[in-house]
C-alpha cells in the first residue's frame, strides 16, 4: 500500500510539472493579449508601460521560470482583466461549481439507481425497455442543447424556475453557498438536472447490469427461498452488491462532472469556475486559464487517487500492490 502511494504521488508530481510546462507554453503561444487589453488610443509610452507591468516584454523562458517559482509559493500570477490574483479568482468560484456538481451527483444516484434496478429485474418488460431507450437518449443528447430546452420549458414557457444566475446565498465559514436557501435551490435545480442527465444514463446502465448479474447469484436465491420479502432482497442484498461499481464509476466521473460544468455553467450563466474559464479563454486572460487548469489537474489527481483507495476498501478482492504498474 505504501509503495503504491509513494509511486502514485511521484507520478502525480511529474504529471503536474509536465502539464504546467505544456499549459504555460501553449497559452503563451496564443493571440496577443495586448491588443485586447490596451485601448487602441493608447500611445507608445502607455503601451510599453502596460506591457512591462504585465511582464510580457521578457523572453518566454524567463516568464516561465518566474511563473513556476511563484506557482510553488501559491501565486499563479495576476489576472490581466480583473487585476487580482488568478488563483484567488478561481478558488472564489470553486464553491459554486462544487455544490452544482454534488447536487448533480445526488440527482444521478436518486433517479438512476431505482430505474436501473427496475430495468435489471424486469429486462423484457415494457418499462425496462423504455428505461433503456431513455438511457440511450440520455447518452446521445448534447448537454448544452438539453440545457436550452430546460430553460425554454421551465423558465420561459412555464415560468416555474429561474433561467440563470445563482440566487441568494448563505455564507458558511465565509464561503457562499446556494443550497441553503430556497431561492438558491430553485436556481440550482435546472443546471444540476442538466449536468446530471448524462450520469443518470450511466448509473441506469451500471445498476441494470449489476442487478441482472446479482439477481442470479446463489445468495439471492437463498434469500428468496428463506422467504424474505422482495423489498428486503432488493433493498439489502441486491443494492449493497451493485453499489461497488456504481460508487467507483461515480467517483471517477466526479472529475468529468466538474469539467462538464463548463458547458452547463455557460448555458445557465452559473458563476462557477467553468464559466470563468470560458470567459478567460475568450478574453485571452492567460493567468486565469493557467490557474484554472492547474487547479483542475490537481483536483483530478486527488480524485483518482481517492477513488483507487476507496475501491480497495470497498472490494477486498482488489489489492493495490506494487505490481500494479
Amino acid at each position, binding site marked *: 500500500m505504501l509503495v503504491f502511494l509513494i509511486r502514485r504521488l511521484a507520478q502525480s508530481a511529474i504529471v503536474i510539472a509536465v502539464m504546467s510546462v505544456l499549459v504555460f507554453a501553449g497559452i503563451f503561444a496564443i493571440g496577443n493579449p495586448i491588443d485586447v487589453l490596451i485601448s487602441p488610443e493608447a500611445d507608445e509610452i502607455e503601451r510599453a508601460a502596460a506591457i512591462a507591468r504585465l511582464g510580457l516584454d521578457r523572453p518566454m523562458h524567463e516568464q516561465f521560470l518566474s511563473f513556476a517559482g511563484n506557482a510553488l509559493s501559491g501565486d499563479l500570477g495576476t489576472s490581466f482583466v480583473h487585476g487580482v490574483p488568478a488563483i484567488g479568482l478561481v478558488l472564489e468560484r470553486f464553491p459554486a461549481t462544487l455544490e452544482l456538481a454534488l447536487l448533480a451527483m445526488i440527482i444521478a444516484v436518486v433517479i438512476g439507481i431505482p430505474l436501473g434496478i427496475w430495468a435489471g429485474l424486469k429486462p423484457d418488460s415494457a418499462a425496462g425497455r423504455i428505461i433503456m431507450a431513455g438511457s440511450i437518449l440520455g447518452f446521445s443528447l448534447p448537454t448544452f442543447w438539453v440545457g436550452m430546452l430546460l430553460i425554454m420549458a421551465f423558465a420561459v414557457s412555464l415560468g416555474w424556475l429561474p433561467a440563470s444566475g445563482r440566487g441568494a446565498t448563505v455564507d458558511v465559514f465565509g464561503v457562499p453557498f446556494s443550497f441553503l436557501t430556497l431561492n438558491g435551490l430553485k436556481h440550482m435545480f435546472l443546471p444540476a438536472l442538466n449536468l446530471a442527465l448524462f450520469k443518470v444514463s450511466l448509473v441506469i446502465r451500471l445498476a441494470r447490469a449489476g442487478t441482472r448479474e446479482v439477481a442470479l447469484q446463489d445468495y439471492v436465491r437463498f434469500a428468496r427461498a428463506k422467504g424474505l420479502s422482495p423489498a428486503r432482497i432488493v433493498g439489502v442484498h441486491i443494492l449493497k452488491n451493485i453499489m461497488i461499481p456504481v460508487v467507483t464509476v461515480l467517483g471517477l466521473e466526479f*472529475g468529468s462532472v466538474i469539467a462538464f460544468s463548463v458547458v452547463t455553467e455557460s448555458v445557465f450563466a452559473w458563476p462557477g469556475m467553468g464559466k470563468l474559464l470560458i470567459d478567460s479563454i475568450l478574453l485571452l486572460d492567460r493567468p486565469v486559464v493557467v490557474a484554472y487548469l492547474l487547479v483542475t489537474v490537481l483536483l483530478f489527481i486527488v480524485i483518482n487517487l481517492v477513488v483507487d483507495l476507496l475501491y480497495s476498501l470497498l472490494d477486498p478482492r482488489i489489492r493495490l500492490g506494487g505490481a500494479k504498474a
Partner: protein
Amino acid sequence: MTAASPVSAAPKVETPLKRFVVGFLDSRVAMLGLVLLALVVFSALLAPWIAPQDPYDLSKLDIMSGMLPPGSADMDGNVFWLGSDEQGRDLLSAILYGLRTSLLVGFSSTAIALAIGLVIGMVAAYAGGGTDATIMRLVDIQLSFPAILIALILLAVLGKGVDKVIVALAAVQWAYYARTVRSAALVERRKEYVEAAQCLALPKGRIVLRHLLPNCLPPLIVVATVQVAHAITLEATLSFLGVGVPVTEPSLGMLIASGFDYMLSGEFWVSVFPGLALLITIVSINLVGDQMRDVLNPRLQH
C-alpha cells in the same frame, strides 16, 4: 469458436463480411438507425443541390424575410419550411450545410485518431516491455482527464478553425484506439495462426499487417463508430462555447448557439431544429454502433 462451415460442398463460402451483414440486419432498430444515418449522410453530401437556398451567398439573403416562423412564405412565395433566422437565411438550408461541417469534423477526426491509435497500439503490443509500459502509462494519464477539458485546452492554444477542431478532436481520441488495438493485438498474437506465420518465416511487417491487423479490426470498428458520435457532440459543444468552428463555416452546434438568444424570446425554431438534426445524427450513429457491438462481440455468438 467460429461456427463450422457446412460440410456439403457448397461453392459459397460464408465470409466474415456476409456473416456480419446478416447479423446486423437482424435487428429492426439497427436497420432504422442505418436508414436514418444514410439519410443524414446523403443530405449532407447533396446539400448544394437539395438545399432551397445557398445560406452563405449573402446576395440571396433578404433581411425582409428574417425571423419567419416555420412553414411561412416570404413575399416572393419562397416557403421557409423550418423558418428563417434574423438575416432571412432559410434554416433548412443552414442545417443541411451545417451538417456537412459537423460530419466532416466527426469523420475526419475519427479517421486520423484511428490511424494514429492503430500504429501506436500495434507498436505497444508488438514491442512489449518498456516501450509498451511507457505508451500505456501515457494513454492512462490522458484518459483520466475528460475529453472536453483536453479539447478546450488545445483549442484555447490553437484558436478557431475547422482544421484546428479536427486536430484537437484527433488528439483527444487517439488514446481510446491505442488501448483497444493493444489489448486486441495482445490476445491475437498468442494465437496459432500467428505462430504458424512465424514458423513460415514471414517478415514481421507482413505478419503484423496481413495477419494480426485484420483480426484486431472488429473491436476497433465498434469503438470508432461510437467515437464518431462523440466527436460530433464534442465539436457541437465546443462551437457552442465559442472556441470551435468560425462563424463563416457554422456547424450544427454553432447554429444552435446563435439561436440561443432568440429562444428566450420565444423564437424557438432557430435553435431547436438544428438541435433535432444533431440529435437524429447522433442517435442513428449510436443505434448502428450498438448493433455492431452485439454482432461483432464473440462472447455473444453461439
